[in-house]
Structures are given as structure tokens and as C-alpha cells.
């Protein structure tokens, strides 16, 4: 044990000696420069000065370290959505009203728990029926001369998405987001039907950058630009991606592709055109 301390002491002694020597050398080189007050210069040199000596590197950490400004004072409303932020602001004395008076009276001032720790609201059943946002009523793809009515659709008995039979109507999956809302808004149209070619017969010819226009029941319109076109095995579509209800607003236009599989009674592929708001 003692021997180890001795070794440590020796090594640090040697290091110290080296450092001192190095600073003397650097002060000497500085001293040899032609101008300036010598005494001041040597004192700067011993402390490292603006010369990158070993000493200056060691000291710079502590000398240049600036303590961060205390956070500006905030009211509790500012941090209410993030309880941890409230706790942090309170710990730095930056909360104008650290805890409600009643909580203080109850001896709760010292811990971070207060009513802001848990959010709550009215559970009135009358709040259930919210106003619905605008729903799509028409779709245009100028580059393909497609003009179609949009009908809200749901789920068929086999758990697939309903698609309107009418040859000039496409179906918007009404359980998912409307076009322009967060998530993937899905609009599907038939490739063909009993009469022959249907509304999305030409959809697979669409190119990236081409425009899709949506008209809503409140008279507003929005424009989307095609970003991608994919073809999936019809029995194994990435449903979670196509019907996602999170993320940036996007549009997924769907029709059939590939070849007709008469034994399965469907086309072999599902074509999905992805578009984003312009």
C-alpha cells in the first residue's frame, strides 16, 4: 500500500517538474519577443496566458467556466403540461408561485407533488359528441383526367375496406383521418367493375410530383403532391402503414394491380400511391 502511494507521489512529482519547466521555456520564448512590459508578460506566461502551454490547458477549464444564468421566472401555467419542468423550475427558485397556498398549508411545500402532478378534466358524457371536421366529397387528378365523387366507407363483412361499386366514385376510409389531418388518409377506387374500366383504371400511370386535389363538404380544397407509388402483394399489404393514424398528414390512393387471379377472385397486387400536402 505504502509503496503504491510512493509511486504515485513520484509520478506526480515528475509531472509537476515537467510542467514547471515547460512554462519556464514558454515564458523564455515570450520574453525574447521584442515588445511589451516584461514583468506582466512573465506573469502571464506562468499562468499560461494566451500561449497554448500545458498549464493554460489545465487551467482553462476552470478559468473559462461560466455558470449558466438562472432560468427566468415563470408562472406555473408555463410548465403545467410537463410536471418535471415544474419541479426543475421550482428547484431553481424560478417558479413565481412554487406551490398553491393550500398545499403549503398541508405541509406539501417541500415535495414536488401538487395538483399539477396529475391532470384531470370533466368526464361529462355531454362532451362526447364532438364536432366533426370537414369530410372529402370530390377528388381530381388533372394529369390523368380523373374526376370522382368521394363517399365515406367503412369495413366490409370480410374485414376488408369497402370500395364503392359506382364507376365514378371513390371511397374514403371514414374511420381514419380525413385528407390533411394527422396520419394517413385512405381513398380507394376500383380498377374495373362489371361494366369494364373503372375510376382508378389509370391510377398506376401516375408519376411522382403530379397533383391530387381534394374538395371538402365545407367548400374548401386542398392539394397533394405524389411522393411515392408502390405495388404490394394483395394478400399482404402493409396495413399498419397505409392506415396509420399518426404522423404527418398524408394521402394513400389505392387500387388493384398485377394480374387477375380467378381462383382467389382478386387481383394479385394492391397499388398504393402516396401523396403529401403541398
Amino acid at each position, binding site marked *: 500500500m505504502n509503496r503504491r502511494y510512493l509511486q504515485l507521489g513520484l509520478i506526480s512529482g515528475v509531472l509537476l517538474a515537467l510542467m514547471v519547466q515547460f512554462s519556464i521555456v514558454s515564458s523564455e520564448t515570450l520574453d525574447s519577443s521584442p515588445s511589451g512590459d516584461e514583468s506582466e508578460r512573465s506573469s502571464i506566461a506562468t499562468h499560461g496566458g494566451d500561449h497554448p502551454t500545458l498549464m493554460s490547458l489545465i487551467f482553462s477549464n476552470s478559468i473559462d467556466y461560466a455558470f449558466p444564468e438562472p432560468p427566468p421566472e415563470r408562472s406555473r401555467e408555463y410548465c403545467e403540461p410537463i410536471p418535471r419542468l415544474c419541479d426543475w423550475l421550482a428547484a431553481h427558485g424560478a417558479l413565481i408561485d412554487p406551490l*398553491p397556498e*393550500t*398545499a403549503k*398549508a398541508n*405541509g*406539501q411545500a417541500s*415535495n414536488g*407533488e401538487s*395538483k399539477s*402532478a*396529475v*391532470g*384531470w*378534466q*370533466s*368526464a*361529462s*358524457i355531454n*362532451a*362526447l*359528441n*364532438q364536432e366533426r371536421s370537414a369530410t372529402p366529397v370530390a377528388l381530381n387528378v388533372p394529369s390523368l383526367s380523373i374526376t370522382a365523387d368521394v363517399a365515406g366507407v*367503412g*369495413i366490409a363483412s*370480410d*374485414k*376488408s*375496406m369497402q*370500395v364503392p361499386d359506382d364507376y365514378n366514385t371513390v371511397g374514403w*376510409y371514414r*374511420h381514419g383521418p380525413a385528407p390533411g389531418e394527422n396520419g394517413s388518409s*385512405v381513398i*380507394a*377506387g*376500383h*380498377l*374495373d*367493375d*362489371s361494366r*369494364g*374500366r*373503372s375510376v*382508378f383504371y389509370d391510377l398506376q400511370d401516375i408519376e411522382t410530383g403530379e397533383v391530387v386535389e381534394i374538395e371538402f363538404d365545407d367548400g374548401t380544397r386542398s392539394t397533394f403532391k405524389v411522393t411515392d407509388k408502390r405495388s404490394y402483394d*394483395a*394478400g399482404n*399489404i402493409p*396495413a*399498419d402503414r*397505409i*392506415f396509420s*393514424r399518426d404522423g404527418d398528414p398524408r394521402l394513400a390512393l*389505392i*387500387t*388493384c394491380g398485377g394480374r*387477375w387471379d*380467378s381462383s382467389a*377472385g*382478386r*387481383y394479385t397486387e*394492391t397499388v398504393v400511391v402516396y401523396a403529401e400536402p403541398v
Partner: protein
Amino acid sequence: MSRAIRLITALGLILTLGVAGVASASSHTGTVTVVHGVPGLTVDVYVNGDLTLEGFEPGAITDPLELEEGSYDIEIRAAGEPADSDPAIAGSADVLAGINASIVAHLTEDGTPSLAVFGNDVTTINAGETRLTVRHAAAAPAVDVWVDGDVTVESLANGSEASLDVPAATYNVAVSAAGDDTPVLGPADFDLGEGTSYIVYAIGSLDDGSLDLLVQTITGLHDAPTAVPAGTGSTATQGSSLMLILAAGLGAIVLSGSAIALRRQFA
């Protein structure tokens, strides 16, 4: 005031609430939502001795709380009562990892304030459907729940629940005393959105005329459609039959042509 006296009669009531649920292996937290179903009195809720919900009003519901698994002591006092005073309602809840439960301050059938714990079904709902759960948490005898004019849940007693998955739509809901067809709540229309669980609490007291409905919603339980059948194959089959007709036509022309040629030869 009478409510306050009632609460005090429940003083010292200790319940141990085992929260049943399906534990998920990955997480060590459970999700707990607190519902205030005792009309007329604003309360302070203490969890493990800490004032966690201050001035919690009747008819209110907390955000879902993620709690580390373990046992939690819950004490409920009238708002502003000292923290060291005897609680009006006290109990403990064992939170297991992965559970999703609702703790409900409510009145028992005879009007005694109490705590009840219900496990919430957060399994995925079939695409196109919605989940409706009704919980009887009111000082009232057993009830029937009417949906679109039919008794859908029969003789639901205080502290019990019933749940069903139905197509997402607007439903007309009413509550009557069991075996009776006079509504004590509703009827009212409710738009039940797809992929969402709606948990409806009947709270209050029949005698006081304070019966009411509260709702807790759990979103994000939706599933996606499995496929998008957008073709009938008519153009595909029509294409091949067209080829057949063309081929047959061509064949006929060739045949008749050669027949004419033959005739000419023999003429």
C-alpha cells in the same frame, strides 16, 4: 352538507383493492385512471401520503397515470381538510405491471362512499367497431341498459359492469330500473367512434335525484382493414375473351376465304 356528513360516516373504512389484469412482460408500470363519482363534494386525494389531486371535483376524471408496480395507499378527504385529519375514504390498490385499471370513488347501493376498481379492456378492437362498457357506480338498485330501444344489458347491479364491441355508429342509450321501461337516465344519442373504448359510469343517487353519466374514453385501440379489394377482374377477363373473339373471327375469315378459293377452283 348532508353529503359531507355521509362521507364522515364512512370514516376509517379500509378497503384492499386487488387490481386484476393481464400483466405485460415488458413494463414495470401499470396505468391507473381515477374517476370521481360521488356528487356534491370536492375532495383532495392523497396517494402514499402525498397530496396528488387537489380540489378534485365530482364528475372529473384524471389523465391516465403510469404508476410503478406496488401497493398504493389512497386517502380521500374533503378539499382543504388537513393532511393529518382522518380520511373520509381510505383504501389501498395493488398496481401490477401492465394492468390498466380505473379507481372509482362512488356511492354503494345504500349510498355509502366507497372505492371500486375496474380492470379496463385495452385489447385491440376489430376494424370498424367500437367498445361500449357500462359500470354501475350509483346509489341505485340494479338497472337495465337500453341501446336503440332494446335492453342490451339486463339487471346490472352496483359495482358490476358489462361490455360489448359493436359497429362504430351513433347509438341511443337509456338506463332504467331493472325490469322497468321508464328511463332514469337518457335516452340520449352518443356518437361512438371507431377503435375507441367508451366506459360509461352511472353515478350519483336515485333518491337524491343526482343520477348522472360519466364517460372515460381509451383511444388508439383500432385495427386496420386487412385488404382493399378494388377490382372485379372484368377488364382482365374481358381482355382475354376479346382476344378469343378476335381469334375466332380471324379463323372464320381465313376459313371462309379458303372455302371461296376452293369453290372458285372447282367452278
